């Protein structure tokens, strides 16, 4: 018997059918189930993918796991912002993450990271030099546990034009003296330059100078005052550094150097690859590396860098642990370093593997380590905010909007607000 369906009944039954169909898929936003068995997702910057992919086949063959690479940001603060929204929501799209100095300490304190003490074998930890291991409890661990393994060792190196000035100035006094000799501002030729644009680049340079004064940048002490004064004088008094550095990023700084407009400068190791990539211009004499100029407390340059972490909510925890142990092992770390200079660190295994290869960064790393000029990165539990506070305050002085004392007091007030 056929019975015609009324419009009301049709709507009722359609709504019921739709609800039934949707029901199994409708979970609350708090129920996130990404569990996966055969795939491990590694989040790391795009420029490192090629080097990572080159070392993965043996791992994938032996474990049967497939490693997927996800592109992470190159800014530590940006990574922290993105990861926080996932982690705080009880989720992690990634199993292993390349994590920053700004992010990992916060995430470890928030309880979002998996402890790695039992995951990474002791021989891997022992492969790092004592100078790096001294910084582990602060930047890579928390409350007695390790949460991050370094895969980068970033030191600000002192590049200079050996072909134009012969030797780099060795002290702050020489920086000024030689700077006045070589600066020709009318033709846009400067003794030195640095990318100091906002977003913590000025902080990087101030921390570099403060490491040469023995000061504590987050205490806004005399050491920072001396560093700020030198920067002010180089820009405003002696004019050996262009005023535009205040609004300059690293690309602009590098361009100025490779345009033969800068005689010496602090820059991260990546500049070596940038310069070598400029084949028409590059020669080893143009990108020589010297020890940093000595300030009141001698030469100094701080190190920091990215490292691998495992989120506590990693969808494939076992796979994540296997992958992080593999990538940081004494066998694979040198292969990564050979594939991408970003992975070059003063680990015994890497230095042994790269000895005699003539890699300028490896040589410079040895020179800096032997001279004892490498300092730990200044620590603050709320690093991202504290860096901005220091930068905001000191830039007032550098741009003549406040006296040094006013700027230091402003910095103290801004930092006090973080406590």
């Amino acid at each position, binding site marked *: 018997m056929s019975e015609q369906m009324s419009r009301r009944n049709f709507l009722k039954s359609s709504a019921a059918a739709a609800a039934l169909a949707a029901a199994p898929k409708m979970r609350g936003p708090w129920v996130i189930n990404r569990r996966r068995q055969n795939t491990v997702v590694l989040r790391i910057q795009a420029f490192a993918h090629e080097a990572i992919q080159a070392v993965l086949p043996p791992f994938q063959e032996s474990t049967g796991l497939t490693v997927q690479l996800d592109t992470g940001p190159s800014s530590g603060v940006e990574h922290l912002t993105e990861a926080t929204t996932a982690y*705080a929501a009880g989720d992690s799209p990634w199993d292993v993450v390349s994590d920053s100095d700004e992010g990992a300490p916060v995430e470890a304190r928030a309880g979002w990271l998996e402890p790695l003490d039992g995951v990474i074998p002791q021989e891997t930890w022992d492969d790092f030099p004592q100078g790096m291991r001294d910084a582990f409890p602060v930047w890579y661990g928390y409350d007695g546990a390790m949460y991050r393994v370094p895969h980068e060792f970033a030191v600000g190196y002192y590049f200079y034009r050996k072909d134009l000035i012969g030797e780099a100035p060795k002290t702050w006094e020489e920086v000024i003296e030689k700077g006045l000799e070589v600066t020709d501002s009318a033709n846009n030729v400067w003794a030195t330059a640095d990318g100091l644009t906002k977003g913590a680049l000025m902080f990087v340079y101030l921390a570099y100078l403060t490491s040469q004064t023995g000061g504590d940048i987050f205490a806004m002490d005399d050491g920072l005052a001396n560093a700020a004064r030198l920067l002010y004088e180089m820009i405003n008094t002696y004019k050996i550094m262009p005023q535009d550095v205040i609004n300059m990023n690293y690309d602009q700084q590098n361009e100025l150097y490779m345009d033969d407009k800068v005689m010496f400068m602090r820059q991260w190791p990546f500049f070596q690859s940038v310069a070598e990539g400029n084949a028409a211009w590059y020669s080893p004499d143009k990108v020589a590396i010297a020890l940093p100029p000595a300030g009141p407390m001698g030469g100094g340059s701080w190190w920091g860098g990215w490292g691998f972490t495992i989120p506590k909510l990693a969808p494939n925890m076992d796979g994540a642990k296997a992958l992080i142990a593999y990538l940081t092992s004494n066998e694979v770390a040198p292969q990564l370093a050979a594939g991408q200079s970003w992975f070059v660190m003063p680990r015994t295994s890497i230095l042994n593997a790269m000895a005699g290869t003539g890699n300028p960064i490896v040589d410079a790393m040895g020179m800096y380590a032997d001279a004892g000029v490498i300092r730990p990165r200044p620590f603050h539990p709320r690093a991202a905010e504290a860096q901005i506070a220091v930068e905001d305050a000191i830039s007032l002085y550098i741009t003549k909007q406040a006296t040094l004392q006013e700027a230091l007091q402003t910095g103290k007030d801004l930092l006090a607000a973080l406590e």
Partner: protein
Amino acid sequence: MVANVSPPQAVTRARSPQLTLNQRRYLAAALLLAPVILLRLFTTLYPFLQTIVLSFHEYNPAFTPRTYVGLENFEKIAADIVVKSSIEFTLIFVFGSTFFQLFFGVMVASLLNSRLRIPNFIRTINLIPWAIPMVVAAVGWRWMFDGNYGWIVDLLRRIGLQINWLTDPASARVAILIVAIWKSTPFVAVSILAGLQGVPEELYEAAKVDGANAWQSFWGITLPLIMPLMVTIGMFMLVWQLAVFDLPYTMTAGGPGFATSVLAYQVQQKVVTLNYGYASAISVIMFLIVGLIGALGLAAFRRVQVSM
């Protein structure tokens, strides 16, 4: 004896609540619109209320739980020189750029509306700055103002003017204003042009008969007639530009110092450093400023309408 008789079926149906056709139509419409309304409320009202609630809390998602702090965030704003400076430049930026956008907008619109034979491609060229994405424009202008490579700096240097556009606090503010004015004047001009084309030609002819010159016609006829439109556009530009972020972020990142920092930039800075409570308090201040400017704009609009 009363017979125990059940009421007929029809009577029972009549007593049950029945909806009229119109009511059923409204119900159906409400049901169909409900998902959209709920979605809209969820994406606008909920964040708005949540922002207000958060502004009274100390909240960092990495360090839960959130703590109720009353007005503490607002007290911090009152003492925070960075935020106060950002409020100052936000107001300078918003009022300064809107004023000049209207000023130049009227000039450009009058030119386009004049009897001069202006080719169509000129009218199109006028719109190009408005069509360029702000970030692209800001990067371009940043290079033009660059002290080492910028042609503006070079040109001025050749005539003896040395201006550190992006590194001197006052010049950096002016540079940001120049770009904002350049970018949005075409939009204002096109909007005003529509108003100018609605002014009856007879009024000008009558004024001409009475001996009025072009300047007097503009002050006596054109300006009063397009004033409601100018107030509307002005109000729109004020409110719209209050949320400016991309331009100062790209050109100066709020520097030098925090001379070109704006409120939206401060909100972003607090969000990326996970200071959600403080970011919300700054957002509430922004909302209050928008509300105040909106109210003033409405009052001005009514006044113009009444005086017309």
